[in-house]
């Protein structure tokens, strides 16, 4: 272009922010004032021009309209959230009451079953049945055992909104794989029935992760997690502590601050699991 008379500041094109901060006022004002001064009139015009009034009214209308149009009513989101939470809780309690009803009916069925078998003088079948139902988790069991309480590390509490997603300190949180290793350790230590927070582990149970929550039997659990295991009390505890599960748990406690406490008890109770519904599987005939 034209040869410049003054050497240009090499950083001139990058001084946008500086320019903005030092000369925020439209340069046209200054220019217009200078022009008016040269013409011998006062630098500033009055504030009484009708155009100014119209523009001011326009600005006011624009502000009001956009505020009205764009504002998301404060309560709406919370209302919807509460509604959803409410419906979740009500469904959950529906499920709970249905489960309780099912369990009650199941108990009745079991009672009738034993009665019928007794009438038919087939006590062997009856004991086999009860043994199998203990193994499959169809009935609640009790016996000596231990209770293991596992809780997230202190620092890993969810944030103020209780939203685990925005919470960065997930290091000290018990994960589903931790739970799996601990539970496997308990099985290896000779546990005969295990439940986590009242959810019986059966052959169809899975310990899974959904987001940040641990799911057992497809029900989300919240910490602290209480693992109840029926087995040979102190012996099982020793085996667990010296086994893989116990060592892993100790590592979690030492490295991540996960809290846990273990206590043995003469009698612990493990509830029945969800009734497994078999639709397709049937007993295979053994070849003779």
């Amino acid at each position, binding site marked *: 272009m034209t040869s410049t008379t003054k050497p240009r500041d090499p950083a001139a094109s990058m001084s946008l922010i500086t320019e903005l901060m030092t000369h*925020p006022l*439209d340069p046209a004002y200054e220019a217009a004032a200078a022009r008016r001064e040269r013409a011998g009139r006062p630098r500033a*015009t009055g504030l009484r021009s009708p155009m100014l009034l119209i523009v001011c009214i326009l*600005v*006011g209308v624009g502000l*009001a309209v956009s505020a009205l149009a764009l504002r998301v009513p404060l309560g709406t989101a919370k209302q919807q959230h509460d509604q959803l939470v409410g419906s979740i809780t009500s469904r959950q309690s529906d499920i709970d009451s249905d489960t309780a009803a099912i369990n009650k009916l199941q108990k009745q069925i079991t009672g009738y079953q034993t009665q019928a078998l007794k009438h038919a003088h087939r006590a062997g079948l009856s004991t086999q049945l009860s043994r199998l139902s203990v193994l499959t988790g169809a009935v609640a069991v009790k016996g000596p055992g231990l209770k293991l309480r596992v809780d997230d590390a202190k620092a890993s509490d969810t944030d103020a909104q209780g939203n685990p997603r925005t919470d960065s300190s997930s290091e000290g949180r018990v994960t589903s794989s931790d739970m799996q290793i601990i539970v496997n350790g308990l099985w290896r230590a000779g546990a005969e029935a295990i439940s986590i927070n009242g959810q019986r582990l059966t052959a169809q149970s899975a310990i899974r992760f959904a987001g940040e929550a641990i799911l057992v039997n497809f029900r989300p659990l919240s910490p602290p997690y209480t693992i109840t295991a029926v087995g040979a009390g102190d012996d099982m505890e020793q085996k667990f502590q010296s086994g893989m599960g116990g060592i892993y748990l100790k590592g979690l406690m030492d490295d991540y601050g996960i809290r846990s406490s273990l206590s043995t008890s003469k009698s612990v109770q493990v509830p029945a699991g969800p009734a497994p519904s078999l639709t397709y599987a049937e007993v295979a005939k053994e070849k003779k």
Partner: protein
Amino acid sequence: MIPALGLVAGLVIGLLLHPDVPLWLQPYLPIAVVAALDAVFGAVRAVMDGIFNDRVFVISFLSNVVVAALIVFLGDQLGVGSQLSTGVVVVLGLRIFSNMAAIRRHLFHA
């Protein structure tokens, strides 16, 4: 005084009439409002500096709003609407704040 009264009158009119904003106009509203605010704060500062000019104000207001809307429109067409909007808000916000600082100096000498 009169412009301030006009602003209040406009606010009241807007609140009372409560007109429905067509959907296609809604993306432009926030940027246009910020641009308008920038023009208004610039005008207030010019008044304090004693160099206010109604013509300059009206033109700067209109051009601000039009350019802001244009930028948003262009950004939407190019798929970078939100980024461009952010840029506009940052630039105009900076201007509003530094004009505000000048107004504050005039008013409170601080």
